[in-house]
């Protein structure tokens, strides 16, 4: 199974959901499939699930999707019990387990040694956590999670070393990505996130 294929399979189902992407190739792949200001590229390894959780808790009527990885989730494994406790019903947590630190030299992660991310999630108290067995099954589970409206984690074992260097560049600077993402949320939700300077500034 390839991550790119999984992402392509759910692109339409994601619709206009806000998507937080982990550090690494997932962001470039997702941005090639669904470009736009509704995607935030995380810059702290592991924090994707936490940023997505905060966003989902703040915007309870908006679907939020986290694109997580094995290295990231292992680094921030304490997010799992916190997610189990908060269980934001509008958050779908997708975990692509390729067994390596993809963007930092393809060295193995602990999942190659048998650490099972879905068992970890269940052990942390997460009720809806599963492995997807194929791209079709991944899409099915994604749509089940959407209908369920309960926090769900869907993991997929994917090939290591997918080549994403030929994909279009993300195209915006890191801080610009954050501002465009926030302005996008302002328009979607009709709220003000970043205040504009007043006339006396």
């Amino acid at each position, binding site marked *: 199974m390839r991550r790119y294929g999984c992402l392509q399979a759910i692109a339409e189902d994601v619709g206009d959901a806000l998507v937080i992407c982990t550090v690494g190739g997932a962001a470039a792949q997702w941005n090639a499939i669904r470009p736009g200001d509704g995607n935030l590229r995380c810059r702290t390894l592991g924090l994707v699930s936490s940023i997505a959780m905060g966003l989902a808790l703040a915007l309870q009527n908006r679907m939020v999707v986290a694109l997580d990885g094995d290295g990231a989730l292992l680094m*921030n494994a304490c997010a799992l019990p916190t997610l189990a406790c908060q269980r934001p019903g509008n958050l779908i947590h997708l975990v692509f387990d390729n067994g390596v630190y993809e963007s930092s030299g393809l060295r193995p992660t602990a999942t190659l040694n048998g650490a099972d991310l879905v068992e970890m999630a269940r052990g942390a108290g997460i009720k809806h956590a599963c492995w997807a067995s194929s791209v079709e099954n991944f899409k099915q589970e994604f749509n089940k999670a959407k209908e369920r409206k309960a926090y769900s984690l869907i993991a997929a074992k994917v090939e290591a070393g997918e080549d994403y260097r030929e994909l279009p560049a993300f195209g915006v600077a890191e801080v610009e990505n954050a501002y465009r993402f926030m302005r996008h949320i302002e328009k979607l939700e009709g709220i003000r996130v970043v205040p504009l300077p007043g006339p006396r500034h």
Partner: protein
Amino acid sequence: MAGETGPSMILEAMKEAGINFVTSLPDHNLAKLLEFVDKDPDLKHVPLCREEEGIGICAGAYMGGKTTAIIMQNGGFLNSCNALTTTALNFNIPIVLLIYYAGDIGDEGFSTLGSVTEPVLQGLGIRCYVLRKLEEIRATIKGATTLAIDSRRPVAVLLTKDVLGMRR
């Protein structure tokens, strides 16, 4: 006996400053404040397993329109340094850091932690205010929140035993 005056004044100041989303990890000296935060219906409270995740949760909540704070010990602040740098500072995210100052002057224990706290905050470029007097709680927390939002950066308020009602 733990005093309730300081913690209840801190809670009121947070609410007056517009803070409506709080993440936290306990310290003995923060127990009363966290009890008040947890009970307050105007605040969304997310208890953490590690402080660094709290920086991410606050960052996400801010992007969703909330005004956020994290309540933690200074050891937890040290746990949060990468997230503060590569998420909060990198993305211009304001968060009010309410940090219990372990190893403060007059304390027994945690002196190593106390000695690095302010230098590390300065190293990160995070402005920091030490709260020692009850009468300064309101203005300091309100001012720190305004400064965080206006500078679009985290701002730290160090909570001493004096204001938490824990000084023996």
